[in-house]
């Protein structure tokens, strides 16, 4: 019975914790300081209830469903205020594809992207066009503010026709340009019926591309999913007017199409005619006898050769 105490030695007596002298001094100082505060200063006001944590304040990549996303790097202004207001970051995204769907070339797509591309050129950066569907007119591009001679156009259609491998060269070239990260802006007409994973590959390549990257597809591409974070459908909605439907953006759905007024091609008089929907009375072009009398155009006769 006496074994137990031997096995379990009596508990050690309570020893006051040894405190180093320097620590003790520091504690005394602290106590002094807190006493001072308690006596001399009025009681601190009770802290207000902390504001609720809003997810969008936590990180730039977080946003609520009814808000527009914010981008880490500033977007490129589109040059159209109504459009800027509806795009995340108030402009065309950098480091991401912007997919534009067109029923046919010539609805006003060049006039839509021209302000941002011309701005890239003014900043001294290269703008590349890939596979434009038909011939471009240098005069018209200069009129839209482009430095025409500094545009680089990659044309793979002729080659594709010869070799029968349509689209692969064009996508390869586009991917190289996006990956290099040295091109200021890219405008590419993609081959029809492009598979979604091809577009996804381009979107991954675009992450190295510091500038807007527009890819133009046919309207039926709206049926397939897209990796591009921004997708717009363009449609002409009158002379010098463009209806932009936002099909996909980082933000809430937008039901009604945006109506943009493009830089005018028509004169004021012609625009009024377009609104009224009537042909000009004096342009009786089907009556050749009258036509000669009403001709007001400049006749260009260039006699100088070269």
């Amino acid at each position: 019975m006496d074994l137990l105490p031997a096995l379990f030695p009596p508990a050690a007596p309570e020893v006051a914790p040894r405190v180093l002298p320097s620590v003790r001094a520091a504690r005394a100082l602290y106590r002094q300081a807190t006493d001072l505060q308690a006596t001399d200063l009025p009681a601190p006001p009770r802290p207000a209830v902390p504001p609720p944590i809003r997810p969008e304040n936590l990180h730039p990549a977080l946003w609520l469903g009814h808000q527009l996303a914010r981008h880490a790097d500033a977007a490129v202004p589109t040059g159209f205020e109504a459009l800027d207001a509806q795009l995340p970051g108030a402009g065309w995204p950098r480091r991401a594809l912007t997919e534009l769907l067109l029923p046919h070339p010539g609805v006003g797509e060049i006039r839509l992207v021209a302000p941002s591309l011309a701005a890239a050129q003014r900043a001294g950066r290269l703008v590349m066009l890939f596979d434009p569907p038909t011939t471009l007119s240098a005069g018209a591009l200069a009129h839209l503010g482009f430095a025409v001679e500094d545009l680089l156009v990659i044309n793979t259609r002729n080659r594709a026709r010869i070799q029968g491998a349509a689209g692969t060269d064009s996508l390869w070239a586009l991917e190289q340009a996006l990956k290099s990260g040295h091109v200021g802006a890219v405008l590419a007409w993609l081959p029809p019926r492009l598979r979604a994973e091809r577009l996804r590959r381009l979107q991954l390549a675009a992450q190295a591309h510091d500038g807007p990257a527009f890819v133009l597809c046919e309207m039926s591409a709206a049926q397939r999913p897209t990796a591009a974070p921004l997708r717009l459908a363009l449609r002409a909605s009158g002379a010098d007017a463009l209806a932009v439907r936002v099909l996909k953006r980082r933000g809430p759905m937008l039901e009604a199409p945006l109506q943009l007024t493009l830089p005018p091609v028509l004169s004021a008089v012609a625009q009024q005619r377009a609104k009224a929907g009537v042909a000009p009375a004096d342009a009786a072009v089907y009556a050749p006898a009258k036509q000669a009398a009403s001709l007001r155009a400049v006749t260009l006769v260039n006699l100088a050769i070269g």
Partner: protein
Amino acid sequence: MLWIAIHLPLLSLESFAATLSLDAAAQPLALIDAQAILAVNAPARALGVKPGFKRATALALAPQLTLGLADLVRDAQALTAVAHAALAFTPMVVIQPDDPPHTVLLEVQASLRYFGGLPALQLRLKDALAPLGHRLHIVSASTPLGAALLAHVQPDLDCADQAATNRALARAPVWLLGPGRAHWEALQGMGLHTIDDLKRVPRDGLARRFGPVVLDELDRATGARPDPREPITLPPTFDSRLELFARADTTEQLMHGAAVLLARLVAWLSAQHAFVRRFTLVMEHEKRSRHDAPGSGITTLEVALAEPSRDSAHLLVLLRERLSQLQLPAPTLDLRLHAEDIARRAAPNTELFPTPAAEHEGLTRLIERLQARLGREQVQRLVPVRDHRPEHATAWRTADAQMRPARPRAMEQATSHEGANAAHLVRPVWLLQKPEPLPERDVAGERGLWCEGQPLLLLSGPERIESGWWDFEAVARDYYIAQLPGGALVWIFRERVPAAGANLSWFLQGRFG
């Protein structure tokens, strides 16, 4: 004096592997000489093949073994490339004539301060030699022969001064010295195993028994006798040849050999701090018949660079794209790389942050890459031409890879100038290559123009564009802007003089994009 010896223990095997395609080089390989295996690579060693085996033994162990013969010329070319790469560090580079073989010597005392000390210099040397793909023994010592001898037995050693060199040499086996190998048995019998033992015996007796060569070599290695060396000189043009072990049927199989030659070219360029402007790859093909003329089976591929370069990765990408476009007329047996057009200039500064210069270089490379794959004609530039006919107002030029985006000021001038000129001329962005005839139809008693099944509404015009007799493409047209029902604008014209036999006189010329 501080000498670095670079010894390549597997040079013959590695230069043999360079003549194979990349897949074949990763298979078991062995070098054979008169029925005995001389050297094996790692996959072959894993199968149990060892140097010294008979040919039949080796093949029994590894039936898939590829056997090659050592080639002195091939080894010498590979060694020259190593020497060229070393020339970037010091002008005093010597290829050790023989004994020990496969050794390059560098005198680096004067370069130490510039490269920041011996360890930093050795690191940069290893980096410079890495693309050539050799296994290296790098030893530094105070005499050239001492360094060469030690590199033969030690993979990595630094002897700071003469005393350290002598200490290291004293432990080295006596067969390292050339005469020591010849008299190996006699020396063994006398109990002389290391160089230290050799130094202890009386010199006159040693000279009498084994000739003065032993003493001479011993003294040169230990620094007791001067050892003057003649540095190699760089050839003014680069020309390197590689005979392929197997016929290469596709251009993809040529890539490994081409990469080896390009690494040699880069070594030659870095020796003179130069950049290559153009180089030529000559592929010699198998003769189809005995009667072929000697020069007939040769394909020459010339690669010209817009921006002179020494970056082997970039050169390789260009060559790969060009080779993939090429159709070989016959299997290739022999590759030769030739370069003489070089640019000497200061090395570019390395940048931490992106700069306009770096962007320009990147763009040049991008355009070069695109041109290499797509062809020069597909990378184009638009040029406005002063011509009133819309079809002739735009010309296409092949883009120069050196093109750089306009300076902002020059561009503003250009646009203001063009703007003043073109303010009253409205032109569509899209032009049809060939004007498309538009039908006229009667609908509800009214004659109207139709485009793509939709009626057109003329909004403005006419604008008359006429004449062009000087290049036989005279036009006489009245242009109008018309609207499709959806709202898109098109540019149409009416021929004032209809072509004979054609009653359609309206055409679609362009669209306002």
